[in-house]
């Protein structure tokens, strides 16, 4: 009990003194349904089965209505202190970055930039919260109305953290652009109200993240190996219980080769008042496992603010 009270007290003091948790990035992305139903799609053959994926670049280059809605939403979110990452600009940046990376070399030896296949894979447009957007201008007789769906998805937990959906008032006089603008104005306050609740929940109960423990191949130990009469997996679970906010975490799955923790609540700030993300938080477990009696080396792999993997056995 004393530990819980002191943890809460330290967190509150830290928030009041420093108060700058890591700010999530937000990006509006047209939904798969929106892109594919309008023909903004790419198809490829995956060993005989046809896979259809949304083509965001084509959607943003050709769909003025989509751009209008994203622009309106960006203005509202910037006003609330969350300037949105622009998907179109992000895609352009990635293309330029790839070209520059392939051309760049050192002056003395002509050496290129080191990049593993994983590094290349990680160069994609991403954000911490995705505003998944669908809309459609529909007709009832001579009148038009806009059906609108906006889902705020946490990129790591895949949870829908905020949403707003509905249909506007039918109108025979208003232009489509006016109806689209009206749809954004009609739903954004509701959406932001829910987003606010999500942030308040994170500050009160901790940021929810996903942690995976994995093993490199051909190690002389696994998660069932015993240290001080307890299996390694038990030691890891005990560490999670001791360090998650109010001991909140859920062991989603576990074998001798991997453990998957979901709904892990980590503090927004550490005892020094510094912002914490999943990678920074799990680094303490990495250090714990490196010590006696485990003496286990591990590789820390980051997947954004809210997901980290600890791969045991080697760096």
């Amino acid at each position, binding site marked *: 009990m004393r530990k819980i009270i002191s943890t809460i007290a330290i967190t509150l003091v830290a*928030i009041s003194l420093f*108060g*700058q*948790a*890591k*700010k*999530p990035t937000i990006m509006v992305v047209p939904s798969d349904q929106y892109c594919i139903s309008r023909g903004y799609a790419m198809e490829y053959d995956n060993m005989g089965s046809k896979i259809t994926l949304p083509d965001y670049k084509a959607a943003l280059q050709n769909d003025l209505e989509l751009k209008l809605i994203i622009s309106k939403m960006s203005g509202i979110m910037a*006003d*609330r*202190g*969350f300037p949105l990452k622009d998907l179109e600009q992000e895609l352009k940046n990635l293309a330029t970055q790839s070209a520059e990376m392939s051309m760049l070399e050192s002056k003395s030896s002509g050496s290129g930039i080191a990049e593993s296949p994983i590094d290349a894979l990680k160069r994609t447009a991403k954000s911490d919260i995705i505003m998944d957007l669908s809309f459609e201008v529909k007709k009832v007789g001579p009148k038009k109305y806009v059906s609108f769906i906006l889902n705020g998805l946490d990129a790591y937990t895949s949870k829908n953290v905020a949403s*707003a959906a*509905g*249909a*506007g*008032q039918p109108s025979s006089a208003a232009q489509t652009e006016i109806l689209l*603008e*009206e749809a954004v*104005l*009609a*739903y954004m*306050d*509701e959406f*932001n*109200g*829910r*987003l*606010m*609740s999500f*942030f*308040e929940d994170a*500050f009160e109960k901790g940021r929810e993240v996903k942690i995976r423990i994995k093993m490199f191949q051909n190690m002389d130990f696994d998660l069932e190996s015993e240290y001080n009469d307890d299996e390694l997996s038990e030691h890891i679970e005990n560490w999670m219980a001791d360090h998650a906010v109010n001991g909140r975490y859920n062991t989603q799955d576990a074998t001798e080769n991997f453990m998957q923790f979901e709904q892990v609540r980590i503090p*927004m700030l550490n005892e020094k008042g510094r912002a914490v993300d999943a990678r920074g938080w799990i680094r303490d477990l990495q250090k714990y496992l490196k010590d006696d009696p485990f003496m286990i080396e591990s590789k820390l792999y980051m997947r954004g603010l809210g997901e980290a993997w600890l791969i045991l056995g080697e760096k």
Partner: protein
Amino acid sequence: MKKTIQLATVFMLALIVSVNAQSRKELKAYYGSQYNVEIQTLGVGNDGTKLFKVWGYAKKAEGAAIEAKRNAISAAIFKGIPAGGGAAPTPALTTDINAEVKHQAFFDEFFKDGGKYLQFVNLSTDASAGGSDSVKMKKGYKVAVAVSINFVALRKYLEESGVIRKLDSGF
């Protein structure tokens, strides 16, 4: 015995009347009350505004119209604005249910007669309130006013005054 019963009856009646009068007084004077605000959303307002019809009560119709404007701002802060006319519901600006108690001094000043709350009422129809929107009651008037409030400016003012949290506070 009969006299005692009569006295007790008179005393009980006096007590009931006094409690009722007290509760009515509190209900009317309490700007944050969730019970005396009736709202009907009229549509989606222009950028940054909310458009709805709100009711006020007073002995005179003019007073009821002024009360309605105060109710409009009070509803946006404490109660939220319901869905209607193609607009989605707007949650209350404060997420703390005890905000009116915590910041009582601020709200007493904000909602005083001719207070700063009027700055956020853009447009109202109080001059032409009449017909079905002005109902004569036993002890006064119930008047509906269609108002457009500057919701974004109100939110920013309350954020800067430290009464409500910003969406990005803490980050």
